[in-house]
């Protein structure tokens, strides 16, 4: 194989892994959401879709949903803005999908004499990239609300935009503390930093973001749930009683808005994992195998270590998704003004406070 082909293959593999991971997780989450809410509410949940009598706990429901939405009528309201109406779901889903590209899913892998960092794109300021893509997702909902030529959709779009803006400000401000502690905006560097042990008598704990920045973790998670526009922050759509920005949408275009929400859940879970849960780090797993603090050791080959890291990342993302769903089905819905107050008067000032305290502690630490 020529080097050019190898390079192309590696690049394709990196992107394909992230793409397939995010899309499949997003599809799977529709099933998880139904099943988990059913279990939590003491129901059975969706289990009727079957292929040759096989039901598999309703795992075929995402497939059935996709088939149904693709075969439904694609309706365009008479007074709608034709181009923007069609473009809005694509914009929504696109920026949710590309946001995951900068999140590393594994350590550096050696392939054919090359060092391949396991992330779709290597960026010096990876956090800023994810943040930029998340902030562009607002256009999708605003375009949808406006292009529908429906006042209720317009109001829903404005609620969604206001919510997403206030959530993103809090996300950005809470991430700042993490970037300060690990001294980088490169996700790979931040995850490396989380592999180091803590100080003093706490050396047996890895310095994950959740340990070094507990307040930022809570703030980020809260703002992250708000950014996905689902319960308890689902007033932009309010499926059962108020009308949302995609009220005029039908078929797969509606499905794409739902997909954007689920993909955003995966992105938030991925960010939580990368910034606060150690990313692909496995506790006590060094570059050449396990090194336990009580002296035991287990030497492993390099590819095995990297594979374990990728597996750990996938598991952590799945756990984070599960936790986000758990919160989603525990809390009642916020009213619009309550959510705005929480975002601007609660999350944002606390994030700034976190940045100030982190800065002071870091300065004292370095001069000591």
């Amino acid at each position, binding site marked *: 194989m020529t080097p050019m082909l190898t390079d192309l293959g590696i690049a394709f593999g990196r992107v394909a892994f992230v793409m397939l991971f995010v899309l499949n997780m997003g599809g799977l989450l529709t099933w998880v959401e139904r099943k988990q809410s059913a279990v939590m509410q003491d129901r059975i949940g969706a289990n009727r879709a079957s292929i040759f009598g096989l039901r598999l706990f309703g795992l075929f429901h995402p497939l059935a949903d996709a088939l149904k939405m693709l075969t439904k009528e694609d309706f365009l309201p008479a007074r709608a803005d034709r181009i923007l109406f069609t473009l809005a779901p694509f914009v929504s889903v696109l920026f949710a999908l590309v946001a995951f590209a900068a999140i590393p899913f594994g350590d550096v892998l050696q392939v054919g004499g090359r060092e391949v960092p396991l992330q779709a794109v290597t960026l*010096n*300021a990876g956090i*800023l990239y994810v943040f930029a893509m998340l*902030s*562009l997702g607002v256009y999708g909902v605003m375009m949808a609300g406006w292009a529908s030529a429906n006042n209720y959709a*317009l109001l829903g779009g404005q609620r969604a*935009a206001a919510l997403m*803006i206030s959530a993103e400000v809090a996300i950005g401000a809470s991430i700042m503390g993490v970037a300060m502690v690990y001294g980088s905006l490169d996700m790979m560097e931040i995850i490396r930093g989380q592999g180091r042990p803590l100080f003093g008598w706490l050396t047996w704990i890895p310095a994950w973001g959740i340990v070094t920045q507990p307040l930022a973790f809570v703030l980020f998670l809260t703002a992250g749930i708000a950014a996905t526009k689902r319960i308890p922050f689902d007033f932009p759509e309010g499926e059962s009683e108020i009308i949302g920005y995609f009220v005029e949408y039908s078929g797969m275009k509606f499905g794409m808005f739902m997909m954007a929400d689920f993909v955003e859940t995966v992105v938030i879970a991925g960010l939580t994992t990368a910034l606060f849960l150690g990313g692909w780090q496995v506790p006590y797993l060094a570059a050449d195998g396990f090194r336990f603090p009580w002296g035991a050791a287990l030497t492993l080959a390099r590819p095995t270590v990297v594979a374990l890291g990728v597996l750990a990342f996938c598991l952590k993302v799945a756990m984070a998704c599960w936790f986000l769903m758990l919160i989603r089905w525990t809390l009642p819905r916020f009213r619009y003004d309550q959510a705005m107050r929480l975002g601007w008067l609660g999350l944002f000032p606390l994030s700034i406070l976190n940045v100030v305290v982190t800065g002071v502690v870091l300065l004292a630490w370095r001069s000591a």
Partner: protein
Amino acid sequence: MELVTFFGVAILAVASALGLVLRRNPIHGALFLVVNLGCVAVLYLLLGAEFLALAQIIIYAGAIMVLFVFAIMVLIPGKEETGPDPLRPQRLLAVPLGAVLLLEAVLVLRSHVVGGGSSRFPGHQPGSPLAAVPPAVRPGGIESVGRLLLGDYLFAFEVTSVLLLAALVGVLTLAKRKAE
């Protein structure tokens, strides 16, 4: 490859700028401006200014233009432009001002092409591959931008932030007075 990207993005940037000026629908105009800002961000990226490109997207496309679109959506409910433009006579001024701007652009371009252009950053020669430069001195990388902003240009940086704060307080005062 880089040249193809450049021309593709450049054509898109000019097209979206034309769209902004020529479309009568304010929302369409605002969205064209967003596309234009995104294109400029890609151009920054082609020049190796990673941080500048991302800041451009986050601040201009992701924050300022969102507010613009939001305000247009709230204030102009209809699809069409509302009434004749009260500032129509000012449009005549656009011709001489545009000519001045064009002249300026030509002068700047000429002086740079003739002078060969020089890099502000130590350790970086124009035209050398970016990967060879360590991140701390890589122009456009977050380290060098941060060093410049909080080092050489600290005073201007702080004055700008005070100015923004003053504008914020001023707007709040004006808004409060109107409500009473």
